[in-house]
């Protein structure tokens, strides 16, 4: 009896284990119902435009070039941030790579073009945007992974490429993209240029000109070549300026408005004394010499005059100082500029002065200042009077006026200021007395992500060995 039960039980156990087949079939249970498993190219493309806003709306580089000062918390103007994460930009580059791949791979390219722009136009637009982001990355951090980047686990430890290689590579990519542009619409989801390929072409050419000028110190030969290739294809009026289009809704409005009104309601940023005093110039704090100051800044509440806040220091009583114009900080849809006509004109003036071109530096300088005045809404009479009083006297004029004209275009201005300092004709700026993050002067670059050393140590160490310490004041190849 007892044995029989044992046998029965053993058989039952055996049965249970045998029905335990190798694998169980759960059907489609593990298919994620929350997110699409197929890419939608229009949505991917739209997503790659957003980060432009983070660049054109950033605050810190506007401190570096001393356009703005802090209110009661001075740390940002004293360079409190050492490590800047590259993760967001690399993620965007991954999205762009996905778009390029889907339009390149035989298996997917037809599908990618169906109901959308041609494969060529999608690749061209995505590549131009990729070059734009990459150039910003290299002038912010210096060496960055480029040739071996974005390969996932196929290459877990991408090497950091030299800036020289990166610029050469980016020009090649840009030229390829510009050559690919063909008739027809641009990519779906392109809310930057409304799927207009002619705008992409003009953006690509303007980008090429800016990148070419950026090499004036590091590689003027290549710079001059590329500059001349772009010349004639760049924008020709303020109406063609490139800016990020903001909407009057909380999720897509101008970040300056977010800081001063909803959702942050803060008063952290004032126009700096360096900038205000420069624009007051020979005028007074009521009638500044440079008429753009009326458009760029608001008079202080307590005195109703233009008063710049002390750069690099705490400015407690914010009502005593000038804020950035309410047209920007209280306006959800105020555009923030990527590249403007005046910047193109200043570039052409400088290239002419450097003998890269045969254009007239003086005339272009005057046009550049007037274009800036027009961009800021200054009437032409006042603009003409200003130019007459401040004629072209050489590259120093370009240095100063370009600095003024790039007001609030932080990253672009910081990149250009460093270049012009390397060339010796920048608007002179004095670093603050108290500097954080081991800084010893106005930042020459930004340090890599705080995890960079941990996650890609060998290549990080190699980059540091070649470039210098991972500090704010290591001068990068571009500006050496």
């Amino acid at each position, binding site marked *: 009896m007892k044995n029989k039960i044992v046998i029965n039980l053993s058989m039952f*156990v055996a049965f249970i284990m045998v029905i335990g087949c190798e694998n169980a079939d759960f059907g489609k249970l593990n298919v994620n119902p*929350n997110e699409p498993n197929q890419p939608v190219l229009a949505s991917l493309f739209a997503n790659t435009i957003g980060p432009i806003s983070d660049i054109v709306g950033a605050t810190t580089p506007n401190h570096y070039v001393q356009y703005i000062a802090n209110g009661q918390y001075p740390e940002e103007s004293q360079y409190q941030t050492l490590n800047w994460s590259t993760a967001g930009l690399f993620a965007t580059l991954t999205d762009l790579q996905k778009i390029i791949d889907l339009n390149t791979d035989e298996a997917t390219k037809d599908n990618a073009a169906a109901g959308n722009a041609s494969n060529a136009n999608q690749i061209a637009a995505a590549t131009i945007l990729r070059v734009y982001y990459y150039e910003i990355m290299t002038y912010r951090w210096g060496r960055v992974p480029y040739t071996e980047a974005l390969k996932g*686990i196929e290459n877990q430890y991408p090497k950091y490429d030299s800036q020289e290689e990166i610029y050469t590579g980016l020009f090649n990519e840009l030229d390829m993209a510009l050559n690919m542009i063909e008739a027809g619409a641009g990519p779906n989801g392109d809310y930057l240029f409304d799927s207009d390929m002619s705008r992409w072409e003009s953006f690509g050419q303007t980008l090429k000109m800016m990148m070419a000028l950026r090499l004036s110190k590091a590689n003027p030969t290549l710079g001059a070549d590329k500059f001349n290739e772009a010349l004639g294809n760049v924008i020709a009026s303020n109406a063609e300026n490139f800016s990020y289009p903001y909407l009057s809704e909380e999720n897509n409005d101008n970040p300056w408005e977010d800081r001063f009104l909803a959702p942050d309601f803060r008063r952290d940023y004032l126009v700096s004394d360096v900038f205000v005093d420069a624009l007051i110039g020979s005028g007074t704090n009521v009638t500044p010499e440079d008429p753009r100051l009326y458009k760029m800044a608001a008079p202080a509440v307590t005195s109703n005059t233009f008063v710049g806040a002390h750069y690099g220091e705490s400015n407690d009583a914010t009502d005593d100082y000038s804020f950035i114009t309410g047209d920007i900080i209280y306006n959800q849809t105020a555009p923030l500029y990527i590249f403007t006509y005046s910047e193109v004109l200043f570039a052409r003036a400088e290239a002419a002065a450097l003998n890269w071109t045969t254009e007239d530096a003086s005339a272009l300088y005057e046009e550049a200042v007037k274009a800036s005045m027009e961009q800021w809404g200054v009437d032409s009479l006042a603009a003409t009077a200003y130019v007459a009083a401040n004629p072209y006297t050489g590259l120093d004029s370009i240095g100063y006026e370009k600095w003024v004209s790039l007001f609030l275009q932080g990253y672009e201005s910081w990149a250009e200021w460093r270049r012009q300092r390397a060339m010796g004709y920048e608007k002179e700026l004095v670093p603050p007395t108290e500097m954080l993050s081991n800084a010893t002067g106005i930042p020459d670059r930004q340090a890599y992500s*705080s995890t960079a*050393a941990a996650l890609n140590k060998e290549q990080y160490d190699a980059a540091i060995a070649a470039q210098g310490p991972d500090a704010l004041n290591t001068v990068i190849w571009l500006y050496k």
Partner: protein
Amino acid sequence: MKTKFSGILTLLLAFFVQITFAQEKTISGTVSDNSGLPLPGVNIIVKGTATGTQTDFDGNYTISAKSGDVLTFTYVGLKAQEVTVGASNTINVTMEEDAAVLDEVVVTALGIKRDKQSLGYAQQTVEGESLSKARETNINNALAGKVAGVQFSGAPSSGFGNSNIRLRGDTGILYIVDNIKVDGPADVITDDIESMSVLKGAAATALYGPQGKNGVIIITTKTAKAGQSTVTLNVSTAAENVYVLPEYQNEYGGGYSQDFNIFTYNPALHPADWAAFDGQKMVEYYADESWGPKMDGTLVRHWDSWITGTPQFGELRPFSPNPNNVRDFYRQGLTTNTNVTFAKGGEGFSVRASLANIERTGIVPDSDRNTVQGSFSASMDLSEKLTAFANVSYQDRRTSNFPDNGYGNIASNFNQWWQRQLDMDRLKDYVRNGNVVSWNINSPSNPTPLYWDSPYFIANETDNPQQKHAFYGRFGLNYEIIDGLDASLEVRKTLNAYESTNQFGFGGLGQPFYSEFESSRGTDELFGIVNYQTDLSDSFDLSASAGFELYDTNYKSISASTAGGLSADGFYSLNTSVDRPNLSSYKENVQRKSTFAKASIGFKDIVFIDGSARYDWQSTASAQNNRVETYGISGSLIFSKLLPQNSVLTFGKLRASLAEAPLFPNAYALSETYAIGTPYGSTGKLSVKGQLPNQNLIGGVRSEYEFGLETKFFNGRVGIDATYFNKVDDQLPVGVSLDPSTGYTSFLTNSGKQTYDGFELAVSIIPVRTEDFQWDLSANLGTLNRRVDKIADGVTTNVLSTSWRGLQLQEREGDEWGTLYGRTFRRDENGNKILSSTGSPRYDTDQYLGNLLPDFTGGATTNIRYKNLNLGLDFDFQKGGSIFSVTRMFNAYSGLGIETVGNNALGNPKRDPVTGGSSATAVPAAQAGSNSGGVLIEGVDETTGAPASYYVDAVTYYGRLFALHENWIYDASYVKLRQARLDYTFPKKWLDNTFIDKLNVGVYASNLWLIYTSIDGVDVSEIEDNNQTGYGWTEGGQSPNTRTVGVNLNITF
């Protein structure tokens, strides 16, 4: 009914009276234990009478009895003996150890009851009694310090957060109530708990599969015993107050400078009648730091004196300290906890119903919680062989508001951005003259809040109420096929649903906002088991079980929030969102199929061998490879049974086990999907996700071995239980960090190897044990090492979590798990700090700071009973482990903490200006004027390497230390008296003529005494876990800790 009762009583009395008429004689003798030692304090009763006595110090006794009477000898821990009085007048008794004490029956996996002595793995039981006396509503709190190898990680006690425990280093513990896997410890009524069985190792939890991987706490609820019919009422009321706050300075008030601002009348800005205010001293209202003037009673315009149309307008009042302002903000909290239980057991049935109501008002204004929970359990014999059983529990919990933790909440306001002189009472009235006002006003002419609303506005107008519904239940049948063979089938269900809203009030600093969030998780389980038990021979006995489990869990959530504000003033809804509301929803379904079998063989109650096997198939693993097999074996040897009986070693057991536990990937980790972004107008956005999927991801196995020694000495008065465990996670599905330049931030893979090991020691001592007085002591200690042997091919570092300015939690190959990396002072080879030419300390990034794992954790519990009075004390402690303190960093940065005042090395107030040099920031120490203020920093110069020291302006000095992580890393050691209880059980005879069967009254307290904490003003045993690592490693401005004192009344009818 009552008449009938008194009738029986009379009858009984008459019976006793009759007995006393019989012939009596005097009996005397000696009582000794089995080693021959006399036993004092043995109770001797003439059975069936009230006559009794005790042995004296030498074990002697005398008692009156008559022939034929039965004398009952009882002594705690020894077996009761009965001796019939015969002809002799001398009765000597040798009392034997009570086998029942050793043959403790404990609850093991799947609710199977086993003799503790037969277990081949560590198991510890925590009785429910102390829970119901101390009215602890959180099971994890009740386990703090009681079980070796359990590390307690509390949530700030002022909030409603759940505290966490880690068993052998892991969180994610499975809680089981009467075989039902509940969602969490908060779903259980603690008054229902009979006992909790803590299973730590893989051998103990093997039958639970993946969910039991990190340890299991099996909760057995009370049931009615046969013949029992009771109504129990357990009522308590407790008051709760703040007990630890950082030590604040009370010398300097709000501001950035020690000079007051002066009001200057400006006709262009100010009304004409303000001209009279010209020259008045003002506070720097906009400053939310306390580097201001001395609080010396100077008459100044406080913030409320600028609010027109109020009585305070124009007032000048002294600028004086309010040392208790922060403490004053917190109110006294109150908790009332009422539980009623009905239980009845009879021939073939048992029912129990329990209803609990817990109302708590927290110390933060407007934070209240009301929990109502009912449970019902029943079992009945449908036939001789068929038993049916059912349990259900339902909880309705409503929370009016959760006090936030983390940066930016009310408590962080007081600890990070505050003016020390503020009078808290004046902030209560935050709507004045029709406007929402605050201490942090913009300026006299613009008295709207700048960066901070009144803390009362935050408490009252920014609400996030939540309603929770938690249901769990089961229904099952058990059929006894033949004697020793039975089968059960059970269906189980849990359903946890949450609804919450969040709103930010109109008129405050932010945009009015409203959001709703709903989530539910439902789990269904079908479980079947066949059990067989038999004696194979006189020496061998066997028990075996086999069964299956089908598991299906569904999670669903939906959340919506307004964007761009609310269009209807004073009204909160999604429908009045100004812009398109933000929406998101999520659902997840996971299924698992499992079979298991186990068998145990015992030899003469000396040797026991257990074996188990379990197969799991789960839907989240690769469809080509979704089965994980796990096996376990354990054995125990009761070596004391092989030794001659002796008076020292009462019991000795060696145990060893080797077992495995499965782990499956998370849902949806196998194939690529695209993340949905916030749309631009009507243009949708998608992006490639940062985590690379892996279609080959499969389940993995953790293996663990364990050795233990369990001994009892001196009749069980000393017990020692020691365990060594070693567990290895190998090839588990894990996420590994990638450098973002790869285009991704992490990838999923089956890789890595980590080894945990540690010792666990539990000691129990009964120094005194007599009938009237008993003193029990127990203590435990656990250590834990966790080594990272491998991460993935070619990967040596994994970033687990990041915090303030590059502070990271990492794991590095070859190192202990859980290391903190961040900024350290840059030093020369002799360890001197390297300083800039202005005395600024230079620092390096990505440097080793410490490790969050403690050296050891443990606790001690003592219980002293004198007659019916009982005193219980529970201590717990932790040694080592690193923690980053944001509170301390900000206390210093904002001039709030005590360390920011006092004198410098020159004997001058630190906050005085630095003198003797050309800079207001710093002066070389050698040049400093004799009256110079500033804080001394010493080191070496960064260019020359020569010794350098500076007096640095206090604000600058602490500003430079901000986010210099090394300076704010603390050791997380603590010792605390977590709980104390004193209660009195009324003697039965006092209750004889009442309807009350049992009566116990008590007082209790929790967080009574923080004996030691490494961070002054912060209880490191209750740290928020805002990085969700399962370890609170950054204390980020959390809500304070509270002390609770209450009274409790427990009546059984």
